[in-house]
């Protein structure tokens, strides 16, 4: 791999062979730890990886994108990365079937990360389903900066809540909502939101999860004038900015609507600028 840093796009990204260090089932998800050596130091919460799936003769020709849950440094393996994968389709099922020692073709780290405040703030982290994965790494970083970190997680049912024991250490409070009431309170993550942010007790909201949830959070955040950084979800073919499939309509600085790539200008975007009503709609 040649180390060319002449392009500002994904300037730390490399294509590497990453070894699977562990693969554990957690609820309805797999927690997969991979070895990424010194690339771990360049990964920020909100960055993602793009992984080739299915092996050399695979009919699955597109890379799969996964949020980086956490990075760490282990004396025995060097830099490692944790991914939370839901075995939904053929590609993610293949990935979840990879055993310890398997080698993966990974491009990492990719995309725009969550913005981290330079002074301690009160942060509210909201995750839907396994969208909570990158929020635990984010919580660690925010806590390290002296921030107060509250977290709300939601899903349709308890098995789809991802909240590992070790992740909870970095949060001041954790509230869980399920639509069927099988864990935590019955309802949606947006139910308590208006009240929680109304009195100015939250400076910034960070969110990750399904687009409908992000849109609903954005509406409330705009009304309350609270900054909202959301990691969006749109299907990608490449993850590196060339295919133009993962676009999100956003208000640009000139006031017009632009089609931004969720892999480059995102996945973390300013919720206020995303034109949620135009997502998936034909445009003039």
């Amino acid at each position, binding site marked *: 791999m040649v180390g060319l840093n002449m*392009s500002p796009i994904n*300037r730390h990204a490399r294509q590497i062979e990453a070894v699977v260090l562990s693969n554990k089932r957690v609820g309805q998800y797999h927690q997969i730890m991979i070895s990424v050596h010194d690339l771990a130091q360049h990964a920020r919460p909100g960055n993602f990886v793009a992984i*080739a799936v299915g092996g050399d003769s695979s009919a699955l020709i597109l890379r799969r994108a996964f949020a980086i849950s956490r990075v760490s440094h282990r004396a025995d393996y060097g830099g490692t990365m944790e991914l939370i994968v839901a075995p939904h389709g053929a590609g993610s099922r293949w990935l979840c079937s990879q055993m310890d020692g398997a080698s993966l073709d990974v491009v990492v780290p990719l995309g725009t990360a969550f913005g981290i405040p330079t002074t301690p703030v009160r942060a509210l982290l909201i995750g839907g389903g396994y969208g909570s994965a990158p929020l635990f790494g984010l919580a660690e970083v925010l806590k390290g900066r002296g921030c107060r970190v509250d977290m709300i997680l939601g899903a349709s049912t308890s098995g789809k809540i991802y909240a590992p024991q070790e992740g909870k250490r970095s949060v001041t409070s954790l509230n869980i909502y399920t639509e069927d009431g099988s864990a935590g309170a019955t309802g949606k993550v947006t139910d308590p939101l208006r009240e929680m942010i109304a009195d100015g007790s939250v400076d910034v909201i960070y969110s990750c999860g399904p687009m409908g949830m992000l849109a609903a959070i954005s509406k409330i955040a705009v009304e309350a004038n609270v900054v909202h950084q959301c990691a969006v979800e749109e299907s990608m073919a490449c993850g590196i900015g060339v295919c*133009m499939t993962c676009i999100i309509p956003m208000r640009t600085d000139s006031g017009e609507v632009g089609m931004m790539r969720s892999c480059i200008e995102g996945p973390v975007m300013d919720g206020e600028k995303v034109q949620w009503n135009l997502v998936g709609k034909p445009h003039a």
Partner: protein
Amino acid sequence: MHNASTFDFSTKIGHTWFPTPLFTASGCASSGKELAQFFPLSEIGAVVTKSIALKPRLGRPTPRMAETPSGMLNSIGLQGPGIDAFLADDIPWLMTQNARIVVSISGETVDEYSILARRLRSVPGISAVEVNISCPNVENRGLVFACDPVSSRAVIEGVRRTIGGDIPIIAKLSPDVTDITEIAREVVSAGADGLSLINTLLGMVINTQTMRPHLGGKTGGLSGPAIRPVAVRAVYQVHQVLPKIPIIGMGGIRSGRDAFEFILAGASGVSVGTAIFGNPRAIMDVQNELKEILISRGFASLSEAVGYAHREDSTGALQRGADSEESEG
């Protein structure tokens, strides 16, 4: 046996010489910036830019892609910044990378192609212009110029007249026609120096959950290894009737072996497209593998192998070195 130091890997389109026959496929490499992180753009034959239109275009709504068996559908709809921003930002940047540049242009009318050609005529650093008359992702199928010999001719004649004789023109054709050789003959007699074969095939996926077409634009262009035999056939047919016209072959190339197949069919260059989505270094891998294969099969140059499959007696001396790779699917 020839070796890497004497082997001639170069190719020519019109008057323009390219050190290698590897091109990015238009629409699969943007304008090169994103790939420069993974390999030096100057090491391949040329960067073929995403088709550029006169005005900025927002493109089609999402979902814009669907993975299919050994392929994908895309429905981008030519999203892009428009020619002004492209000339101001992308061309100068590519020149700083010492990349050879093939600019792909797309218009909605015959006149728009000519206007685009006029804008490019005096721009330094452009190796060739690819005239994309075959993008399937337009609202009106009547706008797929490459489906009609008369419209195809009109576009190429207009571009040729406007751009003058110095910059080679490459016409990109659609396989969604009854006889691709008829269109190829028209555009060549209208002044095209080379042909890009093939653009994507029009396709559709229906989402069985929503029970509606999956793509926002309903239909999309099918690419990837699934279309490779269609592309190889198109190259073979066109090379048979126009053996002197350089063809850039493309459609599902992801290995040197795949590229070799196109060269044997009659292509003197190859483009790597969808494979880049799965592997950002795919084009470098294909380039290295193709060179190795050509050398190991006893060719002294790329040009010696072009159209080899058409030779009556292709079972001679060059058979040596053949191995089990040949039956790859």
